[in-house]
């Protein structure tokens, strides 16, 4: 985690795309817990959708940051209490411009065994979609 800002330890909003380097650092951050036998990861990427003959080249994300931080903490608390085998939950969302093909959402859940890792990861994703005050503007 050496290049990851301290406030991102569990989760956060970062400026720009979630790069492969950052993804690998986030993944490595769970390595110090040898009891976590299962790691489930979801990565959301910007899709180059076409609307009215125009193709999306990037998305600009904005957020109500103070509320988003609070919501992320609540999501993590909820997931941890719903899935007893879960050992850590990471949520990272981009702000600002993210190009098509680049990652804008990273969720990682570690647990003792596979069942809670996969289910809790999916559950976290759905809660993020439902509760995170984030908005997007398509750029063409």
């Amino acid at each position: 985690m050496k290049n990851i800002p301290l406030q991102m330890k569990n989760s956060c909003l970062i400026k720009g795309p979630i790069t492969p380097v950052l993804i690998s650092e986030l993944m490595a951050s769970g390595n110090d817990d040898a009891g976590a036998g299962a790691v489930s990861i979801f990565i959301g990427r910007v899709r180059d959708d076409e609307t009215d003959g125009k193709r999306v080249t990037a998305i600009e994300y904005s957020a109500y940051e103070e509320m988003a931080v609070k919501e992320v903490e609540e999501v993590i608390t909820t997931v941890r209490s719903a899935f007893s085998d879960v050992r850590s939950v990471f949520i990272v969302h981009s702000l600002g411009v993210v190009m098509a093909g680049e990652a804008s959402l990273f969720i990682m859940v570690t647990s003792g065994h596979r069942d809670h890792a996969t289910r809790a990861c999916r559950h976290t994703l759905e809660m993020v979609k439902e509760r995170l005050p984030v908005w997007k503007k398509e750029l063409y």
Partner: protein
Amino acid sequence: MKAEVRVLYFGAAQEATGKSEETIMAADTASLRNQLISRYPALKQIPFRMALNRTLLKGDSGLQKSDTIAIMPPFQGG
């Protein structure tokens, strides 16, 4: 009694109002909503929800001085 509250606009609500924030006098969220829609007719097209001091409102609420209300169109994260 009316209170001066801070109103934040996000996403499409920012475009509809042309502002990111302002202060408005309102007694409660229901009257604030009506006030905003009459002031910014474009907001009528947006199914926005409100957060009071960073918590999503499920119903209407009274307002107090220095409350912060966020005008939030449907979330689009992910």
